[in-house]
């Protein structure tokens, strides 16, 4: 990976923005079980691509999710999980493969257009507008909506009651778990047809993690398919209908959450024994 020359972070006290680095983890040995994806609601099908002119990070990687389902992606650091999510969301150029939503090929659409088509995304980090109030954060979630979104907002307050109390507070003043709730709420404001979450529980306390998983299940119960990346793999796979293990940008293992949890190979290599 060549460094971007325009990004030299010289300058007093400029925060150095560190990005997750490349991976050197050994690749999973088990062959990828092919999954039936052609008819799934959201599919990133055989995606190959990387950042800018850099090397490919994803190699023929397939991720799919159906309505009412929770699909979880796990894998070592730098495996390309976040990259895969971004690829599905159109934030990097695919060299091969396609992305389909509800049967329609959306590979060529820009992220904004995907938002319009009903995709919601909560990135791994900095996923709220810290200087804006909770309510404004939710409003921004509804940015593309032209109709009256007040009702949706009420629904979100019902789902995350704490946010109703803090609606006038700048989101930057909230605790980690509360922030994650704002982030999910923001994504839900678009009334998404599918919700994508990148490590929603990273760094949150166990109680908040449980709560978030609870809420995610609640959202899924309303019929919205959820695609998420998790490092707390064991808990995540427990609630997952589908699980994908990615290694070096490739599908290493695929199955239901229980299957993956039961697979000794997966346990040893990716779930910490």
């Amino acid at each position, binding site marked *: *990976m060549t*460094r971007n020359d325009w990004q030299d*972070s010289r300058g007093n006290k400029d925060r*150095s923005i*560190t*990005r*997750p*680095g*490349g*991976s*050197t*983890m050994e690749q999973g040995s088990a062959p990828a079980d092919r999954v039936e994806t052609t008819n799934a609601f959201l599919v990133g099908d055989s995606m190959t691509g990387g950042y800018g002119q850099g090397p490919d990070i994803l190699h023929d990687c397939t991720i799919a999710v159906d309505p*009412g*389902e*929770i699909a979880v992606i796990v*894998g*070592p*650091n*730098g495996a390309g999980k976040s990259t895969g999510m971004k690829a599905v969301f159109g934030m990097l150029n695919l060299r091969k493969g396609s992305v389909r939503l509800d049967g329609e090929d959306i590979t060529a659409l820009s992220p904004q257009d995907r938002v319009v088509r009903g995709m919601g995304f909560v990135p*791994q980090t900095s996923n709220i507008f810290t200087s804006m109030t909770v309510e404004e954060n939710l409003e921004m979630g509804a940015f593309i909506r032209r109709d009256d979104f007040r009702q949706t907002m009420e629904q979100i307050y019902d789902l995350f009651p704490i946010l109703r109390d803090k609606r006038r507070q700048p989101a930057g003043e909230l*605790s*980690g*778990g*509360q922030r994650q709730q704002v982030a999910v709420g923001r994504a839900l404001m678009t009334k998404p047809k599918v919700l994508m979450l990148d*490590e929603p529980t*990273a*760094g*949150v*306390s*166990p*109680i*908040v*993690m*449980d*709560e978030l*998983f*609870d809420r995610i*299940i*609640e959202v*899924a*119960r309303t019929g919205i398919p959820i695609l998420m990346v998790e*490092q*707390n*793999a*064991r808990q995540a796979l*427990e*609630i997952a*209908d589908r699980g994908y293990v990615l290694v070096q940008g490739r599908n290493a293992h695929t199955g239901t959450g229980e299957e993956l949890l039961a697979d000794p190979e997966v346990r*040893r*290599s*990716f*779930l*910490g*024994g």
Partner: protein
Amino acid sequence: MIEVTDLHRHFGGFRAVDGATLRIEPGTITGLIGPNGAGKTTLFNVIAGVLKPTSGTVTMAGEDISGLPPHELFHKGLLRTFQIAHEFSSMTCRENLMVVPGDQSGEGLWNTWFGRKRIADEERALRAKADEVLEFLTITHLADQRAGQISGGQKKLLELGRTMMVEAKIVFLDEVGAGVNRTLLNTIADAILRLNQERNYTFVVIEHDMDFIGRISDHVICMAEGHVLAEGSLAEIKANEQVIEAYLGTGLKNKDQLAGASA
């Protein structure tokens, strides 16, 4: 080793650390847990000199170190790692290690011009030491890679490695596990345990992963709302009602409902 007495740190009206009092015994590995926003990182930052305390004292081996800047604490053997990895991204991993020791004569400008022989000798020794540390961490193959280009977990290993370049007395680790693959986390846990046993480092570890805490620490402190809520062995903590209510929770409630819905 470290004693924190009635420590306060306020931001405006907000009391992030509010009367924390605790003791870290030498040679132990202490786990520090607590809800988000409990003030753990702030406590670390105050002890490590990044923030000045509003009131209260921190002593290390009997000596008052409250308010000392980080670089002075470093020379007293107090080191810390960061919640988000802070590697020197444009330098190689080896250089990241070699830069650490603070007594290098080559850091004085005068010597760079008139003491070049001595510097060359020191550098050789330093390089050997860095390679040793890389080997300990099983990342020798990354020695000449720019630290900005290694994976997140490897960066955390590198951070740990930096503490091994000097004779540290106490090391503070802030959420080494967040976002790190569990298998890699096991490697890190091994490294911590080995450092503790082989070099007698004292550790204080913030972590939300109870398995990890359980694996490494002899003693656990739970903070909430800026002060210490409970302390003891992990088993004691896990049984503590207050801790369960504020932090651990009782597990998922909705799980069965989901199964029902998708069935």
